[in-house]
C-alpha cells in the first residue's frame, strides 16, 4: 500500500488557463471531434508534474519498447540510476552514487513489498523476476524517501507496480531466445472470478548462458530460473478493494569468487560458487475508499527465502503489516499517516571462514509516519512529514522531510526539498566473523585477515537538499531537471586492530583483525535531466543526463584507507538518448545509445548501443528482435567487488514472440 503514495499525495493540479487555440472545437460535430488528434500528458505524468521530488516513471510502453529482459536493464533508462552488470547473476544498481553488489542505500519494492534482503543488505536482482509484461509502471524516486518508505530508502526508492488482474484477462504466451538469455518463456492466463473478482496465474522459465570471463577466471554465471505466481483482485463493494498475490521461485545459478578456501593449510583461490535460491511470498491488501476521497488501507505480507550464495546459506522469514489512513482535512490539508510492524527472522548457515554471531536472530521494527500536504495558495504547496522508527540495532530513529512546490501554471513546476534519511544496520554489520585474506609472512609464516562486525553500531545518515524544475514547454517537448546537495555521515569503515598470534586452529599464525566502525563521511552534489521530445507523431526521442560529484573522507581517528575510494564505484557522468519510431502501422524501431563514464575503481568508460525492431501482426501477435551492446563484442561494467569476480557484458541478440488470446 505504500506503493505510489508519492503520486497519490501529489495530485493537485493548478487550475490556471490552458493555452487555447483559435479554432473553436465546439463548432465541430461529433464525428469530427472523434477524429481530432489529442496531445495528452499521460495521467501519470500529470500527477508527477506537481510532485516535490525527483521522479521518473517507466511506463509499460517504455518496458515493451526497451527490448530488456530483466528489471536492472530497464533501470538503465533512468537518469541518476547507475546499473552495472557484474555477471549474469549479480548486478550493481544504485542511485546517486555508492554503487556496489548488494548496494545498500536504495530501497526496492514490488507492490509495496520490500525486496531488500536483511542479511545481504541489498537486493538479490536475479531473484527479482517479475514478468515484465505484468508491470504497470516503475516509479523511481531519486533522493531520500525515508519519511514515507523508512530506513534504507536513503538515496532513492524503486517502486515496481504490477497491473491489476482486471487488466490482464485472457492468455499470454511469450517465447524467446538469444545469445546471452538463451531461452525464456512465459505462460499466463487470466479471467473473471465470480461477479466482482478477477485473477491471473503465470509460470515463467528463463535460462542464461555464461558470460565471458576476464583472464583465466572460470565463468560460472549460467542461470536457470523457474517462477510461478498469481494475483487476484476483488471489488467486494464499490468502496472495498481486496488484492491477494503471491509467487514462488527456484533459481539455480553461479558466480565466480575469490577467497580463502582453507585456513589449515592456508589456501586462497578463485573458483566457481553455486547460487541456489528458493523463495516465495504472499501479500494481501485491503483498501476502503470514502466518498470524500479519504481512504484507508491495510497490507500484510509474508516472505520466505532460502538463499545460498557467496559460499554461505541464509534462511529468512519476514512478516510485515502496514496500516495507512489518507484523509482530506478541509480544503487545504491532505494528510496521510500510517503504522507499520515488521519482523524478520534469520538463520545463517556460515562456515568457519564466514559466520555470523549470533547465527540466528529475530528482529522487530516498529514505525509510524505522518505527512501533510498543505495547499498554501492556488499555486503553492508545502508538504511536511516525519517517520519514527524503532529498530533492534540502534533504537529510535527519525526521518523528517519538507517539500515546497510552486506551479505558477500547469506547464511549469518548481520544487525544493530538504530531508534526512538513514540506512539501518543489518546482522552482518554487528555479527560478521569472516576470514577474507591470507597474507604470506617471512620464514613460511602466514597471517589471516579477519573482519568482525561491531555490536556498537550506528545508522548511516544522509542530510539532503534538492531542487527541481519540470516543464511542458509545448505540445511536443517536456523537460525535467533536478539538482541535489547531500551530506552523509557515519558511513561504515573497516578499522584495523592490533594483530596477534594464534596457536589454534591449525599451525600458529598471525591474526590481522579489522572491525567495522562508522568513521567516514561524504558529500555529493549533482544533477539529472531528461526530456521527452515528440519530434513527429511517430517519432519520439528522449535524452537523459546524469552528473555526480561524490567525495568521501574519513574522520581523523579512522585508519581505513579504503574510505576515500568509495566514490570510485560510481561514474561521474553518463548520457543517453533513446529513440522510438513507429514505421508505418505495424513496425517499431527503437534505439538507445548511452555513455557511462569511467569508474575510478578501474573500469573504463563505455558506450552501449541497444536496438529493437518490433512487428505487430494483427491484434494478438507481436514479434521483436533486440540487440544489446552492439558496438563492442564485450566490455566490463563493474570491477571485482569483495569476493565476487566480475565478468564481461557481451554483445547479444534476443528474439521474442508474444501471443495474446
Amino acid at each position, binding site marked *: 500500500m505504500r506503493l505510489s503514495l508519492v503520486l497519490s499525495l501529489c495530485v493537485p493540479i493548478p487550475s490556471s488557463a490552458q493555452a487555447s487555440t483559435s479554432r473553436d472545437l465546439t463548432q465541430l460535430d*461529433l464525428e469530427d471531434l472523434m477524429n481530432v488528434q489529442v496531445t495528452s500528458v499521460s495521467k501519470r505524468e500529470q500527477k508527477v508534474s506537481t510532485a516535490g521530488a525527483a521522479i521518473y516513471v517507466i511506463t509499460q510502453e517504455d518496458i515493451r519498447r526497451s527490448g530488456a529482459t530483466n528489471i536492472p536493464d530497464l533501470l538503465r533508462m533512468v537518469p541518476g540510476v547507475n546499473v552495472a552488470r557484474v555477471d549474469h547473476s549479480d548486478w550493481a544498481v544504485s542511485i546517486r552514487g555508492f554503487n556496489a553488489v548488494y548496494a545498500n542505500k536504495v530501497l526496492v519494492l514490488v507492490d509495496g513489498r520490500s525486496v531488500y534482503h536483511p542479511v545481504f543488505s541489498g537486493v538479490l536482482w536475479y531473484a527479482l523476476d517479475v514478468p515484465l509484461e505484468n508491470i504497470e509502471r516503475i516509479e523511481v524516486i531519486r533522493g531520500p524517501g525515508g519519511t514515507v518508505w523508512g530506513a534504507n530508502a536513503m538515496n532513492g526508492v524503486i517502486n515496481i507496480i504490477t497491473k491489476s488482474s482486471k487488466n490482464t484477462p485472457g492468455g499470454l504466451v511469450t517465447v524467446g531466445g538469444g545469445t546471452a538469455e538463451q531461452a525464456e518463456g512465459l505462460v499466463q492466463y487470466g479471467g473473471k472470478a465470480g461477479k466482482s473478482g478477477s485473477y491471473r496465474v503465470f509460470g515463467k522459465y528463463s535460462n542464461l548462458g555464461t558470460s565471458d570471463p576476464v583472464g583465466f577466471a572460470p565463468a560460472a554465471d549460467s542461470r536457470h530460473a523457474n517462477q510461478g505466481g498469481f494475483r487476484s483482485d476483488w471489488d467486494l463493494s464499490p468502496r472495498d478493494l481486496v488484492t491477494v498475490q503471491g509467487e514462488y521461485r527456484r533459481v539455480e545459478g553461479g558466480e565466480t569468487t575469490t577467497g580463502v578456501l582453507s585456513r589449515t593449510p592456508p589456501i586462497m583461490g578463485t573458483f566457481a560458487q553455486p547460487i541456489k535460491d528458493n523463495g516465495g511470498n504472499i501479500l494481501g491488501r485491503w483498501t476502503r475508499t470514502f466518498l470524500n476521497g479519504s481512504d484507508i488501507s491495510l497490507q500484510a505480507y509474508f516472505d520466505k527465502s532460502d538463499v545460498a550464495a557467496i559460499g554461505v546459506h541464509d534462511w529468512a522469514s519476514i512478516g510485515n503489516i502496514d496500516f495507512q489512513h489518507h484523509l482530506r482535512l478541509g480544503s487545504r490539508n491532505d494528510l496521510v499517516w500510517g503504522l507499520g510492524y515488521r519482523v524478520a527472522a534469520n538463520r545463517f548457515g556460515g562456515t568457519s571462514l564466514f559466520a555470523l554471531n549470533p547465527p540466528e536472530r529475530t528482529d522487530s521494527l516498529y514505525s509510524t509516519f505522518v505527512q501533510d500536504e498543505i495547499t498554501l495558495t492556488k499555486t503553492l504547496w508545502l508538504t511536511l512529514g516525519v517517520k519514527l522508527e524503532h529498530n533492534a540495532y540502534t533504537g529510535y530513529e527519525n526521518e523528517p522531510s519538507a517539500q515546497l512546490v510552486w506551479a505558477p501554471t500547469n506547464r511549469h513546476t518548481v520544487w525544493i526539498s530538504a530531508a534526512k534519511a538513514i540506512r539501518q544496520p543489518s546482522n552482518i554489520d554487528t555479527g560478521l566473523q569472516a576470514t577474507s585474506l591470507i597474507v604470506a609472512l617471512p620464514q613460511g609464516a602466514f597471517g589471516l585477515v579477519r573482519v568482525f562486525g561491531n555490536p556498537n553500531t550506528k545508522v548511516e545518515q544522509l542530510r539532503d537538499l534538492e531542487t527541481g524544475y519540470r516543464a511542458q514547454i509545448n505540445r511536443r517537448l517536456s523537460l525535467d531537471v533536478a539538482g541535489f546537495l547531500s551530506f552523509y555521515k557515519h558511513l561504515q569503515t573497516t578499522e584495523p586492530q592490533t594483530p596477534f598470534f594464534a596457536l589454534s586452529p591449525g599451525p600458529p599464525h598471525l591474526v590481522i583483525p579489522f572491525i567495522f566502525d562508522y568513521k567516514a563521511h561524504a558529500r555529493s552534489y549533482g544533477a539529472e535531466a531528461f526530456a521527452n521530445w515528440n519530434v513527429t507523431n511517430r517519432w519520439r526521442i528522449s535524452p537523459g543526463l546524469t552528473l555526480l560529484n561524490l567525495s568521501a573522507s574519513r574522520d581523523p581517528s579512522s585508519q581505513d584507507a579504503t574510505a576515500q575510494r568509495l566514490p570510485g564505484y560510481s561514474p561521474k557522468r553518463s548520457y543517453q538518448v533513446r529513440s522510438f519510431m513507429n514505421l508505418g502501422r505495424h513496425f517499431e524501431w527503437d534505439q538507445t545509445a548511452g555513455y557511462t563514464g569511467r569508474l575510478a575503481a578501474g573500469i573504463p568508460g563505455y558506450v552501449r548501443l541497444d536496438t529493437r525492431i518490433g512487428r505487430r501482426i494483427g491484434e494478438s501477435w507481436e514479434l521483436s528482435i533486440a540487440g544489446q551492446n552492439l558496438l563492442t563484442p564485450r566490455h566490463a561494467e563493474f570491477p571485482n567487488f569483495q569476493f565476487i569476480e566480475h565478468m564481461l557484458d557481451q554483445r547479444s541478440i534476443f528474439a521474442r514472440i508474444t501471443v495474446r488470446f
Partner: protein
Amino acid sequence: MHFRLSLILLAAGALQLGAQGPAFDEYQVKAAFLYNFAKFVEWPPGTFANANDPIAICIVGQNPFGSTLEDMVQGKTIGDHAFSVRRLPDTQQASKCQILFIGAAESKRTRVLLEALKGAAILTVGEIDDFSAAGGIIGFRLEGTRVRLQIALETAERARLRISSKLLGLAEIVKRQQ
C-alpha cells in the same frame, strides 16, 4: 562518415513521418465532448424547474480542464438552456447537476462516487478504464491519439436519460458489470 549517413537517414525518416494534422490538448477535446453530450442527451421531464434553467456541468474533485470548459460553454445555449460549470468536493450536492465529470485524478474513489449517484438522472462521464462497466454512463478512452467513447446504455436507461442514436452510433456500447 557512417554517423553522417545515419543522420541523413534519420532526417529523411522525420520528414516522412512529419505529415500530420493539427493536434489539440486532450482536455480541450474532452471539454468539447462534454458540451456536445448536452446536445444529444435528453433528461427526464421535470429536470429543469424553469424552461431557461442552465444545464449544470459539475466536476467532482480535481479539475483537469483549467478554465477551458467555462470558456468553451460561455454564451452557448441548447434550446433555452445556457450552461453553468460547477466544482463539487463530492456527490452530496450533485442532485442539481445534469452532467457530472469524474476525472482521472479521482480514480480511487470513482466507484464510490458512482455508487452514491446510482439511479439519479445525471449523465456521469469519467476517465477510468472501466468507467461504464463500473456504473458510469459515458467513459472516455484514449486510442492512440484519439478520444473514444464507451456508453453503458442500460445504466443510462435506468437513469431515465435518452441518448440519441447519433451519439450511440459513434460509441462502443458496454454492459455494466455486477
